């Protein structure tokens, strides 16, 4: 297992290096000039050239790459852990990602945990009673949840639960405007509020997470339920289940065996979805005014903020690789053949 992990990490590093170089060149093919956005109200030739110089865009591409990586004398670069400075906010990209990423991780992780806990039993029930009422209900729910994009559900939830019923807090971000956030330790509001001994802030942070999490759970549960149901149904038709039933094992134990077999492909889907949602949660972040990494990424792209784009892509990719590695390890634990 140890060699397997080392091998996977090594492959992941090679992927990251390749991606770094590819992204560096690809974003420079974007159909606009970042210097022109900067000069904005003063796009004189002199100001434009000044902006290009400030951004280092007047240097040859390889010199720019060297500076980005930290191989030139212009200052620290990526190899020293410096992602550069945002061209929009003039803040270090590393610290901005450290601020925005936990918001998304908190949202997506809680959503996936709940979606997982909800979807697996629902999928199992559907598979254990094929054609039954619960199975039909699961089918209808799957169709319903997946029929509209998440931002539509988010806006609907805001309208119903905040505006019409007044149950949920306003979609104003992670906390009420009147609340001071706890000192940032981990970046996760729920954890930092507890570390700071502020249970009221913890509760408020949870309240503000309710609707965005509900939106994501509502949308994510559809495919997970379908996947679990199909895999479970397939596992229940397998020979080892037939044998277990014939051997007179209790139905609960047989179902557990079948679930283990069904979980491997389902975990793959969940892993892929999780990686996707790190950047894909942007619509939900937008609806609920959450300052997450997705919003940061979109803003970076729209403003042609090269250092921010590069930083976000690298961090999301690295995280996705870690998630995929984790999924593979779980896969390997479920099915030892994977390691070999």
């Amino acid at each position, binding site marked *: 297992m140890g060699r397997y992990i080392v091998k996977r990490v090594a492959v992941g590093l090679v992927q990251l290096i390749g991606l770094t170089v590819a992204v560096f060149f690809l974003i420079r093919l974007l159909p606009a000039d970042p210097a022109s956005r900067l000069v904005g109200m003063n796009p004189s030739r002199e100001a434009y050239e000044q902006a290009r110089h400030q951004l280092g865009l007047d240097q040859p591409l390889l010199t720019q790459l060297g500076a980005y990586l930290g191989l030139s004398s212009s200052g620290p670069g990526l190899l020293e852990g410096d992602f550069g400075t945002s061209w929009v906010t003039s*803040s270090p990209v590393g610290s901005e990602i450290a601020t925005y990423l936990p918001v998304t991780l908190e949202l997506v992780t809680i959503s996936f945990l709940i979606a997982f806990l909800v979807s697996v039993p629902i999928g199992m029930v559907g598979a254990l009673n094929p054609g039954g009422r619960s199975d039909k209900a699961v089918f209808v729910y799957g169709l319903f949840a997946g029929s509209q994009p998440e931002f539509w559900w988010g806006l609907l939830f805001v309208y119903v639960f905040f505006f019409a019923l007044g149950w949920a807090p306003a979609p104003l971000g992670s906390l009420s405007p009147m609340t001071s956030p706890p000192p940032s330790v981990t970046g996760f509001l729920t954890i930092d509020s507890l570390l700071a001994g502020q249970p009221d802030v913890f509760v408020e942070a949870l309240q503000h997470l309710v609707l965005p999490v509900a939106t994501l759970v509502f949308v994510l549960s559809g495919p997970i339920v379908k996947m679990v149901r199909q895999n479970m149904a397939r596992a229940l038709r397998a020979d080892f289940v037939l044998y277990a039933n014939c051997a007179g094992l209790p139905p609960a134990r047989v179902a557990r065996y079948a679930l283990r077999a069904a979980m491997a492909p389902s975990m793959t889907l969940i892993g892929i979805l999780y990686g996707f949602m790190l950047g894909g949660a942007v619509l939900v972040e*937008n609806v609920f005014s959450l300052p997450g990494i997705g919003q940061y990424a979109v803003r970076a792209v729209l403003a042609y903020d090269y250092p921010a784009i590069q930083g976000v892509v690298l961090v999301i990719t690295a995280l996705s690789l870690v998630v995929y590695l984790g999924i593979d390890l779980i896969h390997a634990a479920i099915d030892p053949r994977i390691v070999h």
Partner: protein
Amino acid sequence: MRSFTSLLCAMTVASAVAGPLHAETAKTILFLAEDVPSGLDLDGASASITTSQTGMVNIMEPLFGYATKGVNASGITVPDFSKFEGRLVESWAFDPKTLIWTLHLRHGVKGCTGNEFTAKDVVYTYERGKSVSGSTPVGWFLANVASVKGFTADVFKNPAARTLSPDEVKAVDDYTVTIAQSEPNALFLPVLTIFGTYIFDATLMKAHATDKDPWAHDFANNVSPASFGPYCVERWEKNQEIIFKANPNYWRGKPAIDRVIMRRVPQSSNRMVILRTGQAQLTQNLTPREFDSLRGAPGLKVEGVEGNESLFIIMNFKIKPFDNIKLRQAIAYAIPTEQIIKTGYFGQAKPWHSIVPSIYPGYAETPTQYPYDTAKAKATLADAGYPDGKGLEAFHDSFQLTYPAEKESTVGPIVNIIQSALRQVGIPATLNPIPLAQFGDRTLVKRDLPFALNDYDKAIGVDAGYTLQLFLVSANKGGIANESDYSNAYIDETWPKARVETDPAKRNALLADMQEQAMKDVALLPIVEFKTQYALSDKLTGLSWQSDSSERFFDLKLQ
């Protein structure tokens, strides 16, 4: 399914326990904005972003401002552009022989840090501007437009030229400053009201200078350059919120609102529903439809001002077939202005009869106009050599009407109206939304968009000459926002004369001629001037408007 329902119920019950959250407490308002300041440096990367400007104008102070004209029918306080008043300047004098302005500064003005405002702050501000050390040299640009001596393009080529000389800007004593002009230029006072010329607290800025960043741009962009304005920065989380607290030392008196929480709510529909619940007191940049739906809503009011926002079409003179004046005129006659006002702006706009905002000094309604007339449009199109549009199919790419994709919710209905109207007379227009940054690059720098709709760019310097210089003078002669790549010898020759003309009547006559020339040529096709609108609590009064459209929190009062 049962589990999921239970979960949803549990979640909603948990929320119900919290109850609605009330942001409004005494002397605090919640202002919902599409974004919060990305930076607060006048010469920084975010200086052209309007939400960043909102931060700047509330924490810093200009030398000059406009006197108040009164309150318009909608309830907004509007400025009198014919009358300047001193802000940090108490009185001033101009010597036309030496072209020197002598500014007598206000005594006893204290900033957020308690530092007292003196002449050294003014000199520092101009030194910093001339250093062109920021990523966007806005301070230099504005001083250049105002013909402040020494602020020439030479600073970009010659590092030695970046040092401010006493014969340019000089502190005579602690409360007297002289600023010299290189030529007589009536733009001096209008330009010194613009946010990019607001005054820094030199002591504060120097305390945060480093060897690598001697003009403290990082500090201004990431902490706060709050100087002598009505508000200071209490907390600032980029991408989320900024909280302004009243500057107790403000020279016009402590602001009536103690704290202003500016919160980012990117979805305009969410800004609207939050405002309707009473949890927020002010918002802007809703779509015309959303503003319209809020009219008459209980506890709310929608206020608007006919300011300087407008909708116009760009037809690139260097790209065929828009080099054909008859074609441009045919398009002008084909635009259904009234339908755009009714459907696109819900009546909150009016036809635009020149290329300068109609409230600006020097505006002239031009004799040449292009009222909506499809028969005339068809006839002019035939005169252009394209009867019923025959022959235009060869220019498919040129007729892509380009607009910023981020503006879809506002201009979406309008571009569809224009497309239908043009097709009706035989012009094969298609629609081409592109990202705003790309739109800016292609209109302002590359100037390679053949056909575009713009409701975004405006001249915030309140003067017809300032507007005409930016939008109509040839790009190589200072027309830095000449989006249609228009070049006309008469305009290029007339502007330098108008710029130095000291007789206002003669200057206005020259500016009127320039406007007429541009309208004849359809240099830009003006369509409508639309109202700048705000939605606010009916308990909030005193809203004022300035040409940058940024709210001045000092003017607000909460009942």
